[in-house]
């Protein structure tokens, strides 16, 4: 009974994580410029990976595996904002101007 319940919760979490990853990547495709696209990948790195890893956590009983899964999340939580910030500052430095709503006519 409890095992079945855990299995269902893990199902839901993994599917929700996959959905968030798909939506975040859709943002990478649809949003108009680099700075807005950063937010799309931010979704994948935080909630997408978080839900997916949480779903995998419910499938394991080995605490060594659980610790490694949590470590993946911790690494992502540290590295994801660092890369986002590095890319944004590099793009600013490289002369990219953020897209504004008033630029909308230029977009196809």
């Amino acid at each position, binding site marked *: 009974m409890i095992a079945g319940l855990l299995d269902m919760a*893990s*199902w839901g979490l*993994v*599917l929700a*994580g*996959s*959905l968030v*990853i*798909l939506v*975040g*990547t*859709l943002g*990478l*495709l649809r949003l108009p410029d*680099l700075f807005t*696209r*950063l937010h799309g*990948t931010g979704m*994948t*790195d935080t909630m*997408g*990976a978080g839900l*997916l*890893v949480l*779903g*995998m956590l419910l*499938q*394991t009983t*080995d605490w060594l*595996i659980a610790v*490694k*899964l949590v*470590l*993946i999340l911790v*690494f*992502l939580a540290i*590295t*994801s904002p*660092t*890369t986002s*910030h*590095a*890319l944004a*500052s*590099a*793009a600013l*430095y*490289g002369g*990219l101007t953020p897209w504004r709503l008033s630029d909308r006519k230029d977009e196809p």
Partner: protein
Amino acid sequence: MFAAAAAALLVAMAMALVRAVAGPTVYDRILAVNAIGTKTLLMIAVVGFLTRRPEFLDIALVYALINFIGTVAVTKFVKHRHLGHPANLNGEGEL
């Protein structure tokens, strides 16, 4: 269930690949490659669970670190055209 997650990750990777090819700026390509790297690391973990071989998680961990270092290194190279370039003139380093 994990097969569904793996399929979703594959689709997401293909979408990110489109962005990497389309660009238009080099920063978009770096961002797309970084996104593909994140999805690859999740993919490795998912495949590990799919095939009941949790040792894959070690590879996923190493992949997370390499992906981060690689992205930051490429970003820094594009920004300064040099990997040893100090960000400020007073010699302090920056990402």
